[in-house]
């Protein structure tokens, strides 16, 4: 049996096709999100990669910011529940999830069975999100994918505000014009993202294992900064961008199996 999870975020679209609730047949990501051609394209890509048709899916569940706009889905589940489901499947020892996406930061506490015990989300503000890193990468003229490398070479991280993207941007510009090395600024940017996410994690209660997911988890500079702030190791979920889509596909499988029992 095949099930599908579709996660439409603010800045990326993800699809996972799962076989029998266990094997990931396809896990595709396109870096544009809700309201764009992304959702349709990623869906087609995943199906063609798996060599399957939409009709082959026993159930499709949508999640993410754009979850209500996915016509193909039979049901929607929030990304918090899906994230928890997906991460727990991949890392069963997870107790705290830090999920940083395009416009949201979330901390999710799990119980020993992988159920959501508590969660906190950022306020409506881009600081500490993927969008924040986008802005910084543009100002610094450093590719997002190269930010971690720069960070690793930092000698003295600069101070970058974590309260507001607009303030932080002007701070970074003035540091650049003062000749502060990009490496140090980037380390400061990563610390700023970490302090935002860790604030939510502290509210939730920090317990190991800590797992990071969401697009920003691919930036190892952020992962290092979070680990340093929490003084604990942080595990990056395998393929961290598709964990919520995976969770949705697992929910879909469980629902079909439950209905067939």
């Amino acid at each position, binding site marked *: 049996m095949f099930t599908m999870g579709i996660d439409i975020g603010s800045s990326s679209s993800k699809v996972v096709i799962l076989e029998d609730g266990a094997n990931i047949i396809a896990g595709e990501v396109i870096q544009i999100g809700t309201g764009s051609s992304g959702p349709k394209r990623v869906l087609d890509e995943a199906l063609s990669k798996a060599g399957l048709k939409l009709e082959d899916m026993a159930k499709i569940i949508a999640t993410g*910011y754009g979850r209500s706009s996915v016509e193909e889905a039979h049901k*929607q*589940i*929030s*990304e*918090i*529940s899906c994230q928890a489901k997906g991460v727990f499947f991949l890392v069963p020892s997870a107790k705290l999830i830090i999920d940083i996406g395009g416009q*949201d930061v979330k901390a999710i506490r799990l119980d020993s069975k992988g*159920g*959501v*015990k*508590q*969660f*906190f*989300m950022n*306020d*409506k503000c881009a600081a500490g999100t993927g969008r924040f890193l986008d802005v910084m990468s543009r100002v610094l003229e450093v590719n997002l994918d190269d930010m971690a490398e720069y960070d690793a070479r930092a000698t003295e991280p600069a101070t970058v505000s974590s309260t507001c993207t607009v303030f932080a941007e002007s701070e970074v510009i003035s540091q650049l014009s003062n000749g502060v090395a990009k490496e140090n600024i980037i380390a400061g940017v990563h610390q700023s993202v970490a302090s935002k996410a860790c604030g939510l994690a502290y*509210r939730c*209660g920090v317990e190991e294992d800590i797992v990071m997911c969401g697009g920003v988890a691919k930036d190892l500079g952020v992962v290092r900064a979070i680990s340093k702030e929490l003084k604990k190791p942080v595990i990056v979920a395998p393929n961290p961008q598709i964990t919520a889509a995976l969770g949705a596909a697992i929910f879909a499988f469980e629902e079909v199996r439950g209905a067939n029992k």
Partner: protein
Amino acid sequence: MSRIETIISELSSISNNPRKAMEDYKKETGKGSVGVMPYYAPEEIIHAAGFLPVGIWGGQKSISKARAYLPPFACSIMQSVMEMQLEGVYDDLEAVLFPVPCDTLKCLSQKWKGTSPVIVFTHPQNRKLEAANKFLAEEYRLVREKLETILNVKITDEALNQSIETYNENRKVMREFTDLAANYPQIIDPKKRHAIIKARFFMEKSKHTAMVKELNSELKSLPVEAFTGKKVVLTGIMAEPNEVLDILKDNGFAVVADDLAQESRLFRNDVPSGTDPLYRLAKWWQEFDGCSLATDAKKSRGPMMMDMVKGSKADAVVVCMMKFCDPEEFDYPIYYRQFEEAGIKSLFIEIDLETTSFEQTKTRVQSFSEML
């Protein structure tokens, strides 16, 4: 339309249109209205003068002009009150009663931009001393004097004691209503519950009492049906705009009790008995507990809410955090810990009167319902 529906729709239309309520009152009595800023002003004094006390709670609004007068981190409700002041919304009021129990109100009270005269008074924070009662009764005496001058009426002790009784009767009926509403969530959904309570701010109290009393007795005559959704207690300053309440409803939540400054905190205690009306009103403040605006060394808000959860058989608490409200933000970590220790689930949502997009709230509420 059934009698219940008629009453609810009348109260909802009053709560949605305060201006019309003011005009109707003027037509009926020839008297105007006096604005009442949050929180815990002795409205009874205005009532005793024969004028209509009208609650000022801002509104859903985009903020532009207010930015010139308030820092961006001033709470959302006062941003909207300031914006409306600048638009002249409150200029038809004969006066505005202005308590100042938080820093934002303290500052705002000194820069009222409307044309109505403003009467500022202070609630003492060292509340449990007898001196606090005396101080506040004296403040209220000054409020009464100023109102008498502005409104050109005499406010007698007798009239004031009578108004206190009218208000206590309303408080009693409201407590009965919120208890009943918890049993009939299929009829009293979160938005209707809020509208029925909010109408209190724009009606002569005995009229509101009469309508809610009738609603209560109609409700009582109906069978209680099983409710399959989840039951929650709301806490915070207020649970507005209506979109927030609709999101709760759409996700299968019923509000079975509240600890909101705009709702139950106002009527969970009666004004105590006595002979001197101003002293009675002052004593109410001393006996009042469980609010971020009333200093409480014992921090009883958490335990009070836990009793509420137990008493109303609620599944969880929804924290409606007014954006940038420091008194409420300071209380939160204290009661949140207490909830955690007691195993009470809670959801944190942000109340922002300026917002028009509710996606974040939807995600939080949906996730919470999946979690419970």
